[in-house]
C-alpha cells in the first residue's frame, strides 16, 4: 500500500501549489463508501510554474515515485531546465509506484489553474489539508473533454447525485 498520507503531507510541507481533480477529486464529495467511484488513478492539477512543478517532482521522487513523460522516464537531471521544457509543452507527467499512478497535469479543460485554485475546497485528510477542486468544476471539465469514458462517468454520477439528494431531502423531512 502506498503511503499517500506521507506524500500529501510532504507536498503541503514543501508548499507545492496543487489541486486534486478528476474522479479522485469527485470522490471527496461522496457520502458513503458505496458511492465512491473505482479509479486506479489520481489527478493532480499544477499551475504552469516551473519552480512549483520542480518542487512537486522532487517530493514525489523523495517519496519513491518514478516519473514518466510520454511513456518514457522523465530523464536526468530533474531540474528547473527540464521543468521549464515540460511547462512550455504543457506536457503531462505521470508518477508511478507499485502499480499506482498519479497524473500531474498542467491542463484542466475549460479552466485555468487560478480559476480552480480560487474556489478550491480544503478537506482534511489524516491531519493534512488537501486542496480539492469544486465538484462543479470537475464535472464541467469532464463534459468539455468529451471522451466516451468521461460522458459515461457523468451519466453514472447523475444517478448517484440523485440518490444522495433524495437521502438529504428525506433527512430534512424527518426533522420537521
Amino acid at each position: 500500500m502506498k503511503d499517500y498520507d506521507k506524500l500529501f503531507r510532504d507536498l503541503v510541507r514543501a508548499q507545492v501549489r496543487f489541486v486534486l481533480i478528476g474522479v479522485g477529486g469527485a470522490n471527496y464529495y461522496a457520502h458513503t463508501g458505496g458511492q465512491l467511484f473505482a479509479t486506479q488513478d489520481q489527478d493532480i492539477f499544477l499551475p504552469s510554474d516551473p519552480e512549483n512543478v520542480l518542487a512537486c517532482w522532487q517530493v514525489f521522487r523523495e517519496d519513491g515515485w518514478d516519473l514518466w513523460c510520454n511513456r518514457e522516464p522523465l530523464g536526468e537531471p530533474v531540474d528547473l531546465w527540464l521543468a521549464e521544457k515540460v511547462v512550455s509543452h504543457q506536457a503531462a507527467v505521470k508518477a508511478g509506484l507499485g502499480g499506482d499512478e498519479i497524473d500531474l497535469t498542467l491542463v484542466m479543460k475549460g479552466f485555468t489553474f487560478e480559476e480552480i485554485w480560487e474556489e478550491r475546497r480544503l478537506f482534511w485528510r489524516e491531519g493534512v489539508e488537501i486542496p480539492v477542486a469544486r465538484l462543479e468544476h470537475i464535472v464541467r471539465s469532464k463534459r468539455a473533454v468529451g471522451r466516451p469514458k468521461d460522458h459515461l462517468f457523468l451519466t453514472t454520477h447523475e444517478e448517484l447525485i440523485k440518490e444522495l439528494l433524495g437521502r438529504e431531502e428525506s433527512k430534512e423531512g424527518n426533522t420537521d
Partner: protein
Amino acid sequence: MNDAPPLDFEEIRREAQTAVEDFLTHRWDSYLEAVRRIEALPENQSGADKTWVDRARDAHRARYRKVVRVERAGK
C-alpha cells in the same frame, strides 16, 4: 450456464451512447443544479474531515488485490 446468448457489445455501446446523449441534451442543467446542492452540504465545506474517503478506497483496493484467477473445472 453456457447456454446464455453471447453479449452484443455493439448493442450495449449504442444504448450507452443514447443514454449519454439524452443526459447531455435534456438533463445537464438539472444535474448541475444538483451538483451545486451537493457542494452546499455542510459536510462538503472547507474544513471537513474526509479521511474516511481514502480509508474506504484503500480498503476496496486491498480487497481486490487479493483476488486470484482460478481455472474452472473441466477447462
